[in-house]
């Protein structure tokens, strides 16, 4: 890896990091796991003048349950999520998704905060967080602000995090009994971005009626996308084949994939429907288990 020259800063407190962000502004990039940033620097698609390494800042590596909320620090590694028992007990979707993120050596470094803050619809956590209706804690020198995930992604590589701010925590509401979640992506080989990926979380009441549903899609649009019409097709209904087919049809219609080496737009629209059906079934099975 032979990037363009850059300076390196390694703050040990958030305050110090904010000071550096103030000083360097747009010239700086934050380094957490580095698994998106460093490949871009290697290819010189990104040439930040300063890297601000936040790995030595304490207090960003927790996974804790606080009442009805799971809180995940931005520096939590994918491999830690993969083995986080309590988190996975509430959200089995994390067992699905982490196994599909790259390979073990990448998962040992890559962080959940970086995966989201990169603002890439091809990453896997954005769809998961959309399905889980997560809230994102963004910190700056004036304090913290909490942004619903629906308002977090603004465009290709663009998020609500401003140049002088740092994503510090993800907060996920825990739904009650009868909730299940699931994720799957089709990939050409391990480590590939998704040809299509679907995240689902839903809650069923005693009659099998959907009382809550969240659906996020991976790599099927320029900006991470929540499949709102598909959610509406399911909400308040029982999961009959017709209802599920309608939700799948909506997702196929509403996503905006493009042709690439992974497949044609038509194939991806087809795939999202197939995967959505399968993930609804899987999430429902887990909800009823």
């Amino acid at each position: 890896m032979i990037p363009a020259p850059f300076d390196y800063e390694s703050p040990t407190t958030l305050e110090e990091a904010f000071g550096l962000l103030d000083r360097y502004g747009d010239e700086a990039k934050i380094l957490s796991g580095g698994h998106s940033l460093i490949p871009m620097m290697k290819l010189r698609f990104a040439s930040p003048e300063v890297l601000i390494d936040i790995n030595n800042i304490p207090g960003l590596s927790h996974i804790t349950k606080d009442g009805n909320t799971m809180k995940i620090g931005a520096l939590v590694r994918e491999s830690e999520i993969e083995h986080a028992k309590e988190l996975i007990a509430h959200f089995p979707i994390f067992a699905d998704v982490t196994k599909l993120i790259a390979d073990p050596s990448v998962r040992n470094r890559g962080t959940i905060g970086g995966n989201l803050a990169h603002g890439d619809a091809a990453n896997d956590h954005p769809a998961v967080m959309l399905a889980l209706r997560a809230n994102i804690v963004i910190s700056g020198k004036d304090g913290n602000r909490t942004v619903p995930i629906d308002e977090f992604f603004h465009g290709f590589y663009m998020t609500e995090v401003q140049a002088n701010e740092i994503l510090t925590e993800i907060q996920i509401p825990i739904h009650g009994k009868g909730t299940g979640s699931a994720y799957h992506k089709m990939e050409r080989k391990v480590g590939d971005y998704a040809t299509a990926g679907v995240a689902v979380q839903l809650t069923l009441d005693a009659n099998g009626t959907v009382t809550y549903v969240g659906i996020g899609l991976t790599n099927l649009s320029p900006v991470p996308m929540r499949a709102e019409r598909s959610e509406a097709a399911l909400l308040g209904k029982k999961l009959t084949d017709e209802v599920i087919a309608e939700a799948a049809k909506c997702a196929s219609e509403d996503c905006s994939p493009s042709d690439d080496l992974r497949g044609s737009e038509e194939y991806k629209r087809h795939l999202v429907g197939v995967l959505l059906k399968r993930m609804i079934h899987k999430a429902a099975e887990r909800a009823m288990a």
Partner: protein
Amino acid sequence: MIECKTSKAISGMGHSMKRKEDGRFLHGQGNYVDDIKLPDMLYMDIVRSPYAYAKIKNIDSTAALAIPGVLAVITGKDLEQYNLHWMPTLMSDTQMVLPTDTVMYQAQEVCAVIATSRYAARDGREAVKVSYEVMKPVIDPYKAMDASAPVLRTDKEGKKDNHIWHWEAGQKERTEKIFAEAEVVVKEQMHIPRIHVSSIETCGCVADYHKVNNQLNMYMTTQAPHAIRTVIALVAGHVGLTEEKIRVISPDIGGGFGGKVPVYPGYVIAIAASFLIGQPVKWIEDRSENLQADSFARDYHITAEMAGTKDGKILATRFKILADHGYTDASANPSKFPTGMFSIGTGSYDYDTSFMECDAVYTNKPPGGVAYRCSFRVTEAVHAIERITDRFSLEIGKDPADVRMQNFIKKEDFPWKSPMGWEYDSGDYHAGLKLAMDTVDYWGLRKKQAEMRKEGKLMGIGISTFTEIVGAGPSKDFDILGIKMFDSAEIRVHPTGKAIARFGTKSQGQGHETTYAQIIAEVLGIPAENIQVEEGDTDTAPYGLGTYASRSTPTAGAAAAVAARKLKDKARKIAAYLLEVSEEDLEWEPGKFFVKGAPEKVKTIQEIVFASYTNFPQGMEAGFEATHYYDPPNLTFPSGAYICVVEVDKETGAIDVKRFVAIDDCGNIINPMIVQGQVHGGLTQGIAPAMYEELIYDEDGNILNGTLMDYLVPTAVESPSWETGHTVTPSPHHPIGAKGVGESPTVGAPPAIANAIVDALSPYGITHMEIPITPFKVWKALKEKGVV
């Protein structure tokens, strides 16, 4: 079970001895070219063309030279002054080292930056400004053959088209007649995709020229150090670099697979830079350069046809090939074989008529094609014959296993003369396929398949029963640039009975340091552990043509056995002298001679060797050394029977390889563990073009998957659990009955996988799929048939 004639302490042939070289690799003590650091060493980086076809209007180095540490920017015009801007390819075509006016493919070398650090060199590369006049490239090889296509190689005087050469072999008229009259004729168009070896270590070198001594030490990643030394002498002789002044050292190599046989422009530029500057120059490719610019493999467009009877007898085959060589024919074939050993493509089947032809063309793509883990185009040939055999079976409605059993050359018919004139040395194809079928429970699987089909589920079983042709080769037919394709071994046994052996080959991971030692141990009874094997230094090793095309065991391995036998003859003489008996009275058991009927009268090989330095018969030459240059009388013909089982997800097109049984017959086995390792790696490289890998270009000649993000090299995750086994049919002409195994799995696996997938899809009228077969392609095929 493999029978061993020697004890485990000696570890001759058949022992699964742990690899002697692995200690240093596992401890991180390997010595690769990038580990070499010399005093005052400079670093080179290469500016490459973003366009597939363009005139160079100007190269502006001002900004690059202003970067601290950047010393020079070398262009084609600079090399032209020394007549070093062109070089020959191994196929006697020509190739630019650096262009003086035109670039012919994307990622072609444009100029080189020399700097005091690798970082400065890369910064310099980014700062060089090149202006181009872009021209419309020729990318499609069929369009390159059009009369209206622009002529690309205008550097060749009088060249009026893009055609390179035409090759044909076989019986044209008889083939046409059989095809015209046959009950059944099948035909499929197949593309064997352009792929890349993608070895873990990229290519590179340290060129170290000493002005005072006029001496070049060239550390480089080469599979053929001696041949490279000769090539350098041929290219640079006119500037005073003659062969005795050139030392090529090939250190540890992290995978070669044919990609480290050619001479790449970067090597020559590094030599020129060191020559001009007088300091060592290191050049190490990065991953993308390696993938985008180094020689590709395959890229054969094949029209395959088979004629036969309704009851399954194969009567004739016909293959018409269009070979896309890119900008220049930079294959690494033996000189007389422009299509390599494609003519092995009549396969494992007993019929006497075939016709094959090939036209090679230039396009604006990187040059090639090297023999990627393949004995020169055998992979292409095996895919064609094994796919068309399945197509034929499908056409007549007979099980492909039955068709193969019906047509196999019989064990008793070897040596067998193929319609193309090859003499297959030995084989037992029926036994191999039977073992594979028993292992996988073939008929049980066919029953299961029928049941699954009733439920609408797609399961497929694919067979590949291939014959390889390796060990190039006999000097009457085989040479590279005129140098005959023998190989060599030199054994020196020290007074205390420990040995060093040197070879003209070069291991890139094959385990030569272990297997060659085992061959010598087998013959001399000296423990393999005490035999040091050394390769890769042209100043110390005997001349040889290197390691590729599964030739090391058939050639240098044979040389080791013959040289060791010379020493054993000498040992017998010394033993007779020491024991005061005649040679005829002696009997050998591994490691010692003893007197017949008096086993207490014994001399160990170690005692005998010591005597060769201390107490040898009058008139005998002192010492215990032997050298042999082995010219094989014939090639060897390994074979295999592979069966692949897949399930296909109709909705998504996803392909799940459920089983893969590989039965190989590589003759006598030197080290079963190493063979198994070779087969595992080779099978993974076989699944690669079948399901994952292809270098893809758009119509402007841009590579669309120029990084490992998109060029899909399969990993352990993509690999099924390989089930391996073997039959043993020794080569009758090889000194130790071995045949070579390195490439068999790479060659044999792709059609087994393709046949399995097509078999899964065949109920819907699908008769062929182009590799790599991806989920998207499967879905598209099913959609076209109205299934999804």
